[in-house]
């Protein structure tokens, strides 16, 4: 068993309104960043966990997304491996 850190990114589905993104976009424009054409806001979730292998960790994180971390009706998710954590193993 090793300790891994994974990064989950949960994003609003394309086409759905993203009120947060809209408000931030508006604010960035009025702060002078006129080249900004779109902002979408999602979540970045960092999961530290024990698993047998990187693949097992990734699989577990995907299952977590389906079950809890992402709303299947409004959000898409992506999972990636950040790396193995030190001082782990048992």
């Amino acid at each position: 068993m090793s300790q891994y850190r994974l990064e989950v990114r949960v994003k609003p589905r394309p086409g759905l309104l993203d009120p947060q993104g809209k408000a931030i976009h508006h604010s960035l424009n009025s702060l002078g960043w006129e080249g900004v054409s779109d902002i979408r806001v999602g979540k970045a979730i960092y999961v530290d966990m024990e698993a047998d292998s990187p693949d097992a960790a990734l699989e577990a994180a995907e299952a977590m997304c389906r079950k809890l971390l992402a709303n299947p009706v409004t959000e898409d998710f992506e999972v990636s491996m950040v790396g193995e954590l030190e001082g782990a193993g048992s």
Partner: protein
Amino acid sequence: MIKPTAAPVPPRKGDPEITAEVVADHGLSPDEYERVQQIMGRTPTYTELGVFSAMWSEHCGYKNSKRLLRLLPTKAPWVIQGPGENAGVIDVGEGFALAFKIESHNHPSAVEPYQGAATGVGGILRDIFTMGARPVAVLDSLRFGDLDTGRVRYLFGGVVSGVGDYGNCVGIPNIGGEVQFDRGYEGNPIVNAMCLGLMKHEDLITASASGDGSPLMAVGARTGRDGIHGATFASEELSEDSDESSRPQVQVGDPFTEKLLLEASLELIASGAISGIQDMGAAGITSSGSEMAGRGGSGIEMEMTDVPIREEGMTPYEILLSESQERMLVVAKPGREDEVRQILEKWELEAAVIGRVTNDGMFRVLEEGQVVADIPALPLTEGCPTYEREGIESEEIVALRTMDLTEHLIPEGDLTKSFLLLLGSPNVASKQWIYHQYDTTVRTATAVRPGGDSGVIRIRGTRRAVAATTDCNGRFVYLEPRTGAMAAVAEAARNLVCVGALPTAITNNLNFGNPLKAHIYYQLREAVLGMRDACGAFETPVTGGNVSLFNETDGKAIYPTPVIGMVGVIDDVSKITRHAFQNAGDDIVLLGSNTGEFGGSEYLYVTAGLVAGQPPSVDLDGERALQQAVLKMNHEEVLNSAHDCSEGGLASALAECALGDGDAPFGVDVELDEDLRPVISLFGESQGRILVSASPDKTEQVLSLAARYEVPAMKIGTVTDADAGFSVKVRGGSVAASTADISEAYFTAIPKIMDAPAGSEA
């Protein structure tokens, strides 16, 4: 005006051909489609078909309910605006008018509880402020399955935070509502939101387009592909795969934009620069545009490429049917478009001219100058066929109603255990878990917050206030629809008089199953008749409402649930009565009497899992007398508290009065001798009963006022210190518990279930 006729319109490139299948997909029956062809004098284009489909859906066209709704009483001298507008309006005195309405968002909430509930609140707020009224209060009426599955907890949690986040952000206090948990709502939660708005009489504005050539403007949020065909969707049954297939229809609410739109709309109305304004709600631009044209007896023409859109490449069909939230259609006075733009600009919102009012009676849509839809407006809005169907009571329900309950009436002696079980049932237990997520005090006008019998909002600058409540016990309606609907109206009225408000008018939300089924149509018809009778008897006319049919999953319908949203008027805020006991030593008086029916009670559900038996009867004259008596007692200031007896019966009502909001509980010492089984005395949900408390020197007055109105009344006990505990004795049975134990059962029931980590038992 020339008689409108549809000009020939060539099919738009890329649009599907109109086949029988396409027509069926649009939810139109062959007969209805034939009617469309007659109106058009030709085959409709795809865009036109979409428009008809939305406008003739149950949601917009009321095809299965319109004839029944005509039976309801709608008039009274104080009614300023009855059904047919965005909201009903009544006079509440001193130049003030109250706009109020209820609306459902059941289907969207089943698919995405948070957004479904949030956008439900958003929609009802817009219905109020488009009348020129400032929203001052929200109520929410909710139904879910039992809380023992993860899915139901997810729906309940999501709906409550959706209702809360939206109203909190816009800054409208929640002043009440209700929730019922029962397996009858398992697959189909009910989410009804009600809003109240105040205005001066002269600020009333209605939604109609008149004035040839007046510019039509789209204001607020941009149009995206959200919720295309939501109105049609709301008029269909859900099935196993609804989650998947309904995804594109999820609408996301933006309460921040709503708040800006609210301020901008009220400023627009005050500016006099506009002559009409309407929410683009269900069926979006289609319904707002055609209804404004229909009501004004004029026509409109709109250019789709002028509509501000959020996504590239939207077709006219999509733009017309999008249900993107936080948008309004405005008719500006000619030449004052810039004024409109400036007001919207101040609130950091967009406004675009998208068309104009015409005088040819047509609902005409252009794309880059090419006509893509050209429909006579009046037949589109008014020509939807309406049906009167056959209604037959289901045998199954007759059997349930007439079931022999004798074996459930046996228990006697110490009934404390059953009582604590009942008090800890989420249906009876404190709803603080819900309303502590709602801002209840913003706008500094909330005189009675959720937790009492009715919410109360004072009218600044006067001594007056308005009160509101929502009520319906779906089990009663299920077992006997006419009686159940009368009970819903009666309970609402009792809740109002308990705070000292004169019941004035109602709005209602008819949540039912598929009316094409004879036994559902029976429920719908009977419930409407029950509502008619009760509203007639109480002089509380119906000023509007909403119909949500097809609440079924895999063929199983919800309990018929005609939610009543009733409003009342208080002339003197200093006389408001509250539900909680105020002093140890006060006498407790029970007004009304127990008629002995036990059907549909929470006790049967909790102890035996049963929804059966004869539900409590409703004596409309007796109810009316009770209301008048309590109002009189309120005016004479002889009461220290007043509380309606409902779910969980007398024992539960006593506990609610004793516990209040939990800060300063009291004990109770009650003894009464009725010729009834003890479970019926303690837990029966007989209608027409109100528990009041009074200081001992006022008790005589309470009793004699009751006698004057021929209302049964008896002193049943006294309020004691919390230390003395809770004791209620009836013939053959009793409950006795410490205040701490009843408090624990009552206040922790819902938090214990809901604050456990998500999915712990899933």
